[in-house]
């Protein structure tokens, strides 16, 4: 059964924690992987899909093992108004062939599987266990205190050389350790989701997919009723994930209820036929840390490393893979530290070096400016959606005008919505921001 001492204690068996646990255990470090849920993934939610590159780095043969719903071959973007949609889409049949690209998954299955991989490697998984606080040890008269383990809710203490926090967006222990700033509503988006069950063949027919093929629809404009956020559909094997969410400060300011937004989206004429006759089998919700580069906490200190959502390491739709990679970097740093027998802040700074070199960290860094634009013009995406729909409507609407009159009409419409220069700015900044989608 459980011991009271490990090389490494990992708090949270999500994608970051289980990845760290697996890699540490493979290098023969003794690992406790502590999960508050009944089993890993039982409290987790995302859109969503996982991406090949990061998964493959951590589990090279994941394709044979992971509980994958479908292989995504089509990405579609809906710019939505109440009664029209401008669609931009891409289908690649290359993505239907090995090595594939992205995969829809269901977190309760995926996280449980990944934690199982960590267990197989030798990590000790403790489910239904909440960590209450950290244990500190005074190192010497001239040095500071070092994290030396965790205190469980029943008061039991478990000691370790290193604690890796993979506790998720709330980052409660990171706050107790004094490693993160105070949070506010503008640093988070809040999403709600329903899983809607439909027979596999019905899904294939409705979404024009062959068996095993999946797709994702991203939606802007109508779904969030003016707040910055998105709607989305992910096609799973025999369920459809439908989500909507927005920045929490905008939901509160605009008086929006996320469940109402979801119900409203399900009634949209472009969405309703896709889910018709389906049976809702799960409702769920979660915040996503979107504080960006400026709100990343101190990611390490003596005896402690922060990974995943708890480290605000989410860039665009790279959350799960960023979490897994940060777990990998944390594990590599732990293995190095174990070899040198030194778990001081200085040794653990190698973790920061690895994070700084990652694609998601560099995306966060570059994206600082666009994030600022959205703060200043929170309705930018909404206006873009409106413009695209109105112009496209005029373009396709048949009448008796000359080509010249039609173009003039489209230009007038454009000017009615807002000054042309502002529209140009919105599109430019959207392009900047959507690079990181």
């Amino acid at each position: 059964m459980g011991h009271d001492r490990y090389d490494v204690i990992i708090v949270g068996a999500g994608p970051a924690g289980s990845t760290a646990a697996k890699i540490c255990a493979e290098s023969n470090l003794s690992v406790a992987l502590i999960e508050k849920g009944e089993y890993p993934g039982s409290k987790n939610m995302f859109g969503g899909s996982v991406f090949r590159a990061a998964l493959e780095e951590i589990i090279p043969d994941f394709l044979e093992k992971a509980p994958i719903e479908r292989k995504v071959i089509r990405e579609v973007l809906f710019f939505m108004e109440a009664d029209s949609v401008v669609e931009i889409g891409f289908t690649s049949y290359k993505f239907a062939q090995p090595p594939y690209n992205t995969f829809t998954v269901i977190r309760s299955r995926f996280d449980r599987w990944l934690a199982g991989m960590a267990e197989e490697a030798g990590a000790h998984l403790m489910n239904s266990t909440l960590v209450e606080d950290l244990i500190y040890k005074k190192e010497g008269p001239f040095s500071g205190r070092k994290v030396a383990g965790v205190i469980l809710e029943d008061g039991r203490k478990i000691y370790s050389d290193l604690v890796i926090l993979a506790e998720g967006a709330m980052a409660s222990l990171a706050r107790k350790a004094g490693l993160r700033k105070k949070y506010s509503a503008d640093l988070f988006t809040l999403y709600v989701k329903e899983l809607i069950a439909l027979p596999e063949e019905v899904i294939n027919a409705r979404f024009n997919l062959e068996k095993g093929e999946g797709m994702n629809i991203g939606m802007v404009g109508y779904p969030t009723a003016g707040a910055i956020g998105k709607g989305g559909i992910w096609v799973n094997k025999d369920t459809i994930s439908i989500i909507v969410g927005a920045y929490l400060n905008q939901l509160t300011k605009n008086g929006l209820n996320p469940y109402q937004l979801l119900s409203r989206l399900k009634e949209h004429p472009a969405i309703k036929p896709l889910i018709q006759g389906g049976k809702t089998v799960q409702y769920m919700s979660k915040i996503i840390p979107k504080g960006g580069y400026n709100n990343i906490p101190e990611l390490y200190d003596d005896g402690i490393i922060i990974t995943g959502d708890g480290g605000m390491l989410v860039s665009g739709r790279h959350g799960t893979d960023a979490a897994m990679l940060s777990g990998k970097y944390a594990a590599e740093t732990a293995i190095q530290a174990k070899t040198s027998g030194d778990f001081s802040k200085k040794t653990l700074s190698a973790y920061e070096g690895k994070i700084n070199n990652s694609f998601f960290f560099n995306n966060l860094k570059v994206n600082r400016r666009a994030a600022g634009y959205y703060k200043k013009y929170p309705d930018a995406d909404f206006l873009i959606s409106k413009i695209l729909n109105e112009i496209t409507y005029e373009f396709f609407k048949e009448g008796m005008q000359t080509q010249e009159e039609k173009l003039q009409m489209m230009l007038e419409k454009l000017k009615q919505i807002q000054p042309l220069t502002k529209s140009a700015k919105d599109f430019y900044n959207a392009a900047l921001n959507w690079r990181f989608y």
Partner: protein
Amino acid sequence: MGAFGKNKENPLQYVRIKPAEKSHIKIKDRNTCLDNCENKPCTYYCPARVYSWSGEKQAIMVDYSRCMECGACPWGCPYNNIYWEFPPGGYGVHYEI
């Protein structure tokens, strides 16, 4: 309670929650809700409708047994007036799929 505004359906019927004996959520100061908070946004941004305003008691009512642990409430409250922690291990929300 249960109905979500205009929508008659209660989505919590699709969520398994095992509530602990004690609440993991507290309103820090009831008077702040009464005196300072005009819009009471917790009553609408919470996706599980944990919070409701009682005209009779002149206070926010907290039904922690509805909580899906999304994490929004402590940050969404404009007066930082909600204390929230995770329920004990093994309790609270449990997504089956």
